């Protein structure tokens, strides 16, 4: 055999191996853990017959390394102030989680922890060590306990079925494949048709590998949705709330492509369809406990402090429309609360020249893309300035500031008025250049809340406002 033909055979063999390795990992995993087929509206038989946990799973070196990393991550979330340190909330989430975890289930290297993450973006995720995080943004958005259970059940399935480990193993294989492809492509010694074929394979193959990574992730999400429904029913939560929760997430308040539980999920519409179809064939009789779990008022009473916390986070993160939407819900639930009315006022004030709701035109895909590009470039202050230069922006600003003022004043007239309403009025008047009124409101705030964390900031503002106008040195933001 001459050197040319032997080299040809080596390269051909490598290409064959690559083709096999591209296809095999996902297939192998489908066989090993039998995730349900992703066909819409079909009830995967496996979802019913499988154990809730992946009992055959055995830890390998790479799995233990991943476990070590997530344990570090867990500690970091706490240390960096990302976890909501509220005993009541954590106990509440733990109670729901404990109901969902099948009785007597013991999993190696899993310690169940259910915690709220201080993040206004509606989201949730599970770490393979059993830590399940649900953001305050999602807790504030849902309507009842059953919807929280739906989120937790989905995430619990990821842990019980060891999805993170399986995905990690799969990704490692696929990365290795991609690197081999790159090596073959770089050293392709052949010319002519064979060389061109190898070039095409090595160019296209990485895209196929990436597609299988996302495809596999979607399969796991599909399984988590359906197994989650089963967990809910077993714990006497009405499983149809899973569909309602998905529909809730479909409400695009900020005009952004809201990430759902995670990045690589099937489209929301598809998820709604296949979970609905699955439920259709698996009707669960409603019990009194189920009715209780979907009681909205009980959930709002429990989650009110989390919702307030989240509204403030939403304002800080320039998610002003979400803040208006969530505080409006809170005021409707508890209209006599000075703090709730104050939060609604804050939301309108910070909304500035923006409209409280996006129009259908704003919600088209191209409009969302444009808005995302602008968001990446402009600071919220610059966005505000640009909007104020338009008649629509000016109109919105006027309306929103009027609403904010009315609401601040209302908050101060209610029983046990919330002191920060004075601060809000101060900021509002400062923008309207009513300097004396602003300073007076700030002073009133400091009098009522002398130990406020923003005391220093407000004192400096008062100093700047009381100073003669031509002596102002530092800008006020």
């Amino acid at each position, binding site marked *: 055999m001459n050197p040319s033909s032997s*080299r040809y055979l080596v390269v051909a063999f490598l290409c064959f191996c690559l083709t096999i390795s591209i296809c095999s990992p996902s297939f192998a995993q489908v066989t090993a853990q039998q995730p349900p087929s992703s066909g819409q509206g079909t009830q995967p038989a496996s979802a019913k017959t499988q154990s809730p946990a992946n009992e055959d799973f055995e830890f390998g070196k790479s799995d233990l390394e991943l476990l070590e990393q997530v344990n570090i991550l867990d500690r970091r979330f706490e240390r960096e*102030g990302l976890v909501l340190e509220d005993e009541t909330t954590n106990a509440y989430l733990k109670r729901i989680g404990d109901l969902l975890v099948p009785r007597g289930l013991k999993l190696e290297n899993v310690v169940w922890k259910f915690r709220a993450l201080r993040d206004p973006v509606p989201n949730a995720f599970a770490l393979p060590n059993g830590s399940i995080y649900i953001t305050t943004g999602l807790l504030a958005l849902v309507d009842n306990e059953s919807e929280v259970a739906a989120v937790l059940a989905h995430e619990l399935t990821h842990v019980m079925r060891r999805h993170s480990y399986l995905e990690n193993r799969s990704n490692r294989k696929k990365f*290795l494949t991609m690197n081999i492809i790159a*090596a073959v492509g770089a050293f392709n010694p052949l010319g002519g048709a064979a060389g061109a074929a190898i070039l095409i394979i090595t160019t296209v193959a990485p895209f196929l590998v990436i597609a299988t990574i996302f495809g596999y992730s979607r399969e796991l999400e599909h399984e988590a949705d359906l197994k989650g429904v089963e967990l809910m029913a077993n714990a006497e939560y009405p499983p149809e709330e899973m569909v309602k929760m998905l529909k809730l997430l479909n409400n695009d308040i900020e005009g952004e492509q809201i990430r759902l539980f995670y990045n690589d999920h099937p489209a929301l519409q598809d998820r709604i369809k296949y979970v609905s179809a699955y439920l259709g064939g698996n009707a669960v009789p409603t019990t009194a406990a189920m009715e209780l779990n979907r009681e909205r008022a009980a959930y709002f009473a429990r989650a009110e402090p989390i919702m307030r916390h989240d509204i403030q*986070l939403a304002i800080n993160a320039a998610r002003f429309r979400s803040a208006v939407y969530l505080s409006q819900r809170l005021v409707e639930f508890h209209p006599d609360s000075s703090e709730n009315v104050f939060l609604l006022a804050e939301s309108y004030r910070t909304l500035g020249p923006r409209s409280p709701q996006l129009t259908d035109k704003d919600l088209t895909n191209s409009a969302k893309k444009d808005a995302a590009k602008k968001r*990446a470039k402009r600071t919220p202050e610059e966005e505000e300035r640009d909007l104020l230069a338009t008649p629509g922006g000016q109109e919105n600003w006027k309306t929103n500031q009027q609403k904010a003022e009315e609401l601040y004043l209302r908050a101060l007239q209610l029983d046990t008025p919330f002191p920060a309403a004075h601060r809000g009025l101060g900021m509002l008047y400062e923008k309207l250049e009513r300097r004396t009124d602003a300073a007076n409101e700030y002073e009133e705030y400091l009098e009522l809340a002398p130990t406020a964390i923003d005391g220093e900031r407000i004192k400096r503002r008062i100093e700047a406002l009381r100073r003669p106008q031509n002596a102002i040195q530092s800008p006020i933001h």
Partner: protein
Amino acid sequence: MLFNHRFTKPAHARLTCAVFVVALAAIAPYAAHAQYLHPKIISKQTTIRNIVLLPAKVEIVRDSMKGPEGMGAESEQLSARVAQLVADALAAKHITSLTVPSAPTDGDSQQKYTVADIQSRYDDLLPKITKKKKDVKKGRFSMGDEVLNLNVDKKADAIVFIRGRGQKLTSGKKAFVLLVGGMPAYLQLTIGIVDAHTGEVLLYTDSISAGDPTDPSSNRARKGITKSLKKLPAI
């Protein structure tokens, strides 16, 4: 002949290219630095004497043939080391690093939240700064007077934010990078100095240096930080 022609010629070209890259890596310091100062600093309207360093966030990964793997513990160690290096570089300019009075403690959730919120506010602003770094010179970026909520020492003139990312290569990946190409081991750092009273971004600097970021004996990170703060006036 045909075999030789088709195989040796590209191989020769690759070898030349590899030698060139290796030589370039050996000769050049292989580090890039950019510094952008607010007009207030240039005109000396604002002088930075005392600073407060917020906890650095440096993330590194180990890149292997099987993809990137997290290095949580090493990232934490490196974050602390980088923060110390920045403090040393500033001390060389006679700028004092004050302790964070609001250092998060286990019992004080509110203070922990405040630090986390300010850090995330900076993280929101950072992509906008990196998109148009030159605008720091125009005084375009500000975090607002919310920075006062940190209640740092009254002597503090500025708050320092450090972010970074990098990667270390396994031996297999090193060989792969050498033969096929790809991203070598590196450490990229950004430092933002923000006015402790007004929240204005007074200085933004970024640096990238090649080499294993976890190597404690390496002086690259120190040199990179020192160079990236070169334009900041000493007191």
